[in-house]
């Protein structure tokens, strides 16, 4: 016969078993300091919620990051990376020059470790070649130009955030963690300083703000962006990505990390490209019919997509204006 105290203890044990089991299931998603860490491949993650999305490649050489999020989120990003690996960050590769992509450059780089470790004993080398012993910040020269300023002028970002390795060609390659990495410069798209970062073995492309799942593309015409450049860039992204054929239901093909929003695949990019092309065509037709910018805005040329990409106040008008300006700019 079971005593009442034994019965009570066993009841508590049963409830703890049930409650603990339930909370374990509910905790299956990876969150870290309000950030959402999504596993893309066994060695690859996407961190969302720190401003722009951050790509994280991990291997024997250390960590390669694509973008660094906002400055304010840096500590949380570092903590999230620490949960994934103890290995140091070796590279940060920037896709653009916006604060939500490069704001964390300085802190994340300083917490990393240069690949030039044989130069650490020489302070001159350390400072000149190795970003003070931290991780390198790699970006196209156009990004460096947007972030910096000529001597005597005020720059958009402090010097610690600037790229330490700028390249001038349209394609920069490196090999880290036994994987070929291509950094591809896209001229005149979202702005004049956009890059894709393609991890060839992981089959992951980080697309930056050229592909933004949360809103219409922000085309900064004043900074060299253009609607045709945006479409060309999206077409290139589609060409880089491979869908999951011929066995179409067996997994996903190339993963695409957008500048903002959820992890994507080629068909998502196709949908986004189609949206941009259709809105461009509608506005071009309205211009051809002699409509003014105000009349075009009034006619809602982006109506089919407003509930999906135009929820941010002013974003639809900004997109329509950018397309209009881009189409009517003197060649």
């Amino acid at each position, binding site marked *: 016969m079971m005593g009442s105290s034994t019965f009570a203890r066993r009841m508590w044990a049963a409830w703890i078993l049930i409650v603990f089991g339930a909370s374990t299931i509910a905790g299956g998603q990876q969150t870290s300091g309000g950030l959402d860490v999504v596993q893309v491949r066994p060695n690859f993650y996407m961190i969302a919620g720190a401003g722009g999305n951050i790509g994280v490649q991990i291997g024997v050489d250390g960590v390669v990051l694509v973008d660094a999020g906002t400055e304010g989120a840096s500590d949380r990003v570092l903590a999230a990376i620490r949960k994934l690996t103890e290995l140091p960050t070796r590279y940060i590769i920037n896709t653009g020059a916006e604060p939500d992509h490069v704001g964390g450059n300085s802190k994340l780089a300083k917490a990393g470790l240069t690949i030039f470790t044989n130069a650490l004993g020489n302070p001159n080398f350390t400072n000149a070649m190795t970003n003070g012993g931290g991780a390198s910040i790699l970006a196209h020269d156009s990004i460096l130009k947007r972030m910096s300023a000529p001597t005597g002028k005020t720059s958009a970002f402090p010097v610690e955030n600037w790229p330490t390795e700028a390249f001038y060609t349209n394609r920069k390659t490196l090999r880290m963690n036994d994987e070929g990495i291509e950094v591809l410069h896209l001229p005149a798209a979202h702005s004049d300083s956009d890059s894709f970062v393609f991890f060839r073995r992981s089959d992951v492309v980080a697309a930056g703000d050229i592909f933004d799942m949360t809103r219409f593309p922000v085309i900064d015409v004043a900074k060299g962006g253009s609607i045709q450049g945006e479409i060309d860039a999206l077409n290139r992204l589609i060409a880089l990505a491979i*869908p999951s054929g011929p066995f179409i239901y067996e997994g996903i093909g190339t993963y695409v990390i957008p500048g903002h929003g959820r992890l994507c695949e080629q068909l998502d990019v*196709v949908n986004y490209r189609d949206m941009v092309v259709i809105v461009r065509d509608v506005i071009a037709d309205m211009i051809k019919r002699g409509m003014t910018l105000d009349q075009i805005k009034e006619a809602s040329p982006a109506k089919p997509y407003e509930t999906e990409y135009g929820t941010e106040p002013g974003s639809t008008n900004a997109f329509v204006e950018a397309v209009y300006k881009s189409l009517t700019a003197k060649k």
Partner: protein
Amino acid sequence: MTKTTRNPICLAIFFCFSFPALAQVDLSGSWASKNHEDGLERGAGPNPGDFTGVPFNESGRAKALAYSQSELSMPERICAFYSQWHMMIGTFSVKIWNETDSVTGKTVAWVVGAWEDRAQMTIWMDGRPHPSANAPHSQAGFTTGVWDGDVLTATTTHMLTGYLRRNGVMTSDQATMITHFIRHGDMLTLASQLDDPIYLSEPYYITRTFVNTPALMNSGGPPCIPGDEGVPEGTVPHYLPGQNPLIDEVMKLYHIPREAAIGGAETMYPAFRDKLKDKFTIPPKCTRNCGAPPPPN
């Protein structure tokens, strides 16, 4: 009192895990589709411009009006196929089975087999959560299920963009599909609700019925390799606003007033017929594209 009921741990586990099992119905088997409901929808497909009963919002309608059927021939879309919603509007029969835990014998998932143009639906019954909002989407989506009495209710999220009707009425990647599997003897009814904050102002509902059959239904389909269907790479077929030439086809064919053909939540409800009663004249007997053939005896 039995030994089992004297042991409180066993009692608690029994109460928490055993009752749902008692309510489960066996859904497994081969199920032949009775295409008597929405026959045209499941067969040739709806007429262009037939948006009757679709609870569009303005974006949804504008997107449907911009749609060109040639979109399906874009090289990037030939193998894209349908989202899980196609299970409700497609024509094929289904094979259903359950996956069990080899140790406990419990059903871990119910599976609705794939078609050649729709991915398998795996309905997870083990309490796992849906992935985060930042996780990737797929044609299959992600589905969890619970038993409500004898009815299995499956909730599907994380689908890719797809078709609600095969004439340009779209479902977005933010849509949620709730499907009830209801078995009455040899009949299986699926009743589904689609909530889509991007294209719909109210939920959309549809049902379909299957009959149990001894004929084996195979699951899955052939691989897909896109060919050249005449739409050059990078071209996006679409109609400009006000220039869709097919918009009045269904109006002429069935004498349906424009306000009904262009859809909207109001057109879903029976009361809308009162509004139209003086605007509708019965068309001549249908001679072309009149729906699916009658089901076999």
